[in-house]
């Protein structure tokens, strides 16, 4: 298997695609948001059980490509049990890692596998969809145009 391909579809991504973590509807969720990527047709519903600034539980449902599913799965693992501030920091690390043109990895253990997606710019949205839904849930207001 060629190198680029190995980089994109690492075992960890294929694993999370086959058996995503926290792939469930959270009945006790107090925050629910849908996200959609019209390019791929990726769809997600993200559930948060958020109390006292703490992400006590998280779950997602949806369908999409392996990059999307693995990224959503990894994201839920990364923020579960974290405070909103911590989740914000993780989002920022992930976001910066995905958007800087430098080859640097996302400095957060398993998440680093996602930084390979950068070599495939048309797939970056697959990797970031779940994250942007999370971000909107914890930071509702942002002006896209002025970024």
């Amino acid at each position, binding site marked *: *298997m*060629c190198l*680029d*391909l190995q980089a*994109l*579809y690492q*075992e960890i991504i*294929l694993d999370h*695609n086959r058996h995503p973590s926290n792939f469930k509807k959270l009945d006790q969720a107090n925050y629910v948001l849908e996200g959609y990527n019209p*390019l*791929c*047709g990726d*769809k997600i519903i993200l559930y948060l059980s958020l109390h006292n600034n703490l992400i006590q539980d998280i779950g997602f449902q949806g*369908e*999409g*490509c*392996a*990059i*999307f599913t693995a990224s959503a799965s990894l994201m839920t693992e990364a923020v579960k049990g974290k405070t909103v501030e911590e989740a914000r920091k993780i989002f920022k690390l992930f976001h910066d890692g995905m958007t800087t043109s430098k080859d640097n990895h996302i400095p957060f253990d398993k998440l680093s596998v996602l930084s390979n997606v950068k070599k*495939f710019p048309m*797939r970056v949205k*697959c990797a970031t969809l779940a994250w942007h839904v999370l971000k909107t849930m914890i930071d509702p207001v942002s002006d896209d145009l002025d970024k």
Partner: protein
Amino acid sequence: MEMKPNAIDLVRDDFPILKTSNRNRPLVYFDNAATTQIPSQVIKAMTDYYIYHNANIHRGVYELSERSTLLYEGVRKKVQNFIHAKSDKEIIFVRGTTEAINLVAHSFVRQQLKPGDEIIVSEMEHHSNIVPWQLLCQETGALLRVIPVTNIGELAIDEYEKLLNARTKFVAIMHVSNVLGTINPIKQMITLAHAHHATILIDGAQAIAHLSVNVQDLDADFYVFSGHKMYAPTGIGVLYGKKKCLSKMTPYQGGGDMIEKVSFYALPVFADFPAKFEAGTPNIAGVVGLGAAIDYLMQVDLSLLRAHENKLVDYALSRLINMSYVRLIGQSDTRISIISFVVDRVHAHDVASILDVNGICIRAGHHCAMPLMERFNVPATARVSFSFYNTFSEIDHFLLVLEQIRKMFLCV
């Protein structure tokens, strides 16, 4: 008739991009339904235009502008001959299929619609042949009626017959599906529309490079297509309209060249068609490129090349049908060289990305045909579409990678 291998090699030599690479692998270009590649003859025609003839058209008296104008208007004649229109005045240059359909919606259909009138489209249409009609229906209170698609991906013609009635004002149907590859029986459908006094537009975007089109024989009222799907550049397309339809049409965009007289004390006096619908400076080099693409298609042995395309698609289908993890979307026998499929448990985008890394360019997604995706209950499909410059060994390479994908996702 056996295909001599060197005929295809010769044709491939005309397309410089086929010698380049994709992700550092030799390029295998299987996304011809999205856009076709450009032969050097067409590139040269446009470069020559910029180097020797570039000037604005129609209004200059000097030789440079005269040459530019004659080139531009000469292509109108070429298009006329290519689709067998009665007159070159029936050929209107637009940006592409999308603009052509919007132009007809705005300038022909809009003024005729009353609440309760009906427009018929089909479930397999491209968004560009759905959204303009939805917007128009929303504005006028007309209704959109939809011809369903059968399980094998053909139009249900009996349902079409039932939909046609005295309220049917307009029918808009694709000649060939960009997802299923199906060739629709448009001649019959045109006859049926006319029997109900409805006007009909044929979206020829996917047909124009693969089938011979004779608008007079078809008796099409409107026939539209894009240059970039027939070896010409993007940014140029054609709206063919019967004289009797064009002469009923209100202007589209207002501006220079579509006008005879402008004054603040009177309403503008419009030029006759085609000028009436070509406001402003058009895409002149694009028109020149379209003319060169037609010249190119006239100069190659097109029946040989089309036979080759048919063999490619037959071969690919015969192999795909035997792969248990591949499901074909669209199994009509009257088809062109487009194949849509889904791979068991693998999303189309992952299929496309893995092919991409192996140099193979295919399209994955909804192909601007979301209602059709709904119909077949898939979020997206993978699609390969062949041109005459593709080869059997490219298909073998593609099939090999498909097998790799199966292994990666299912049995690792």
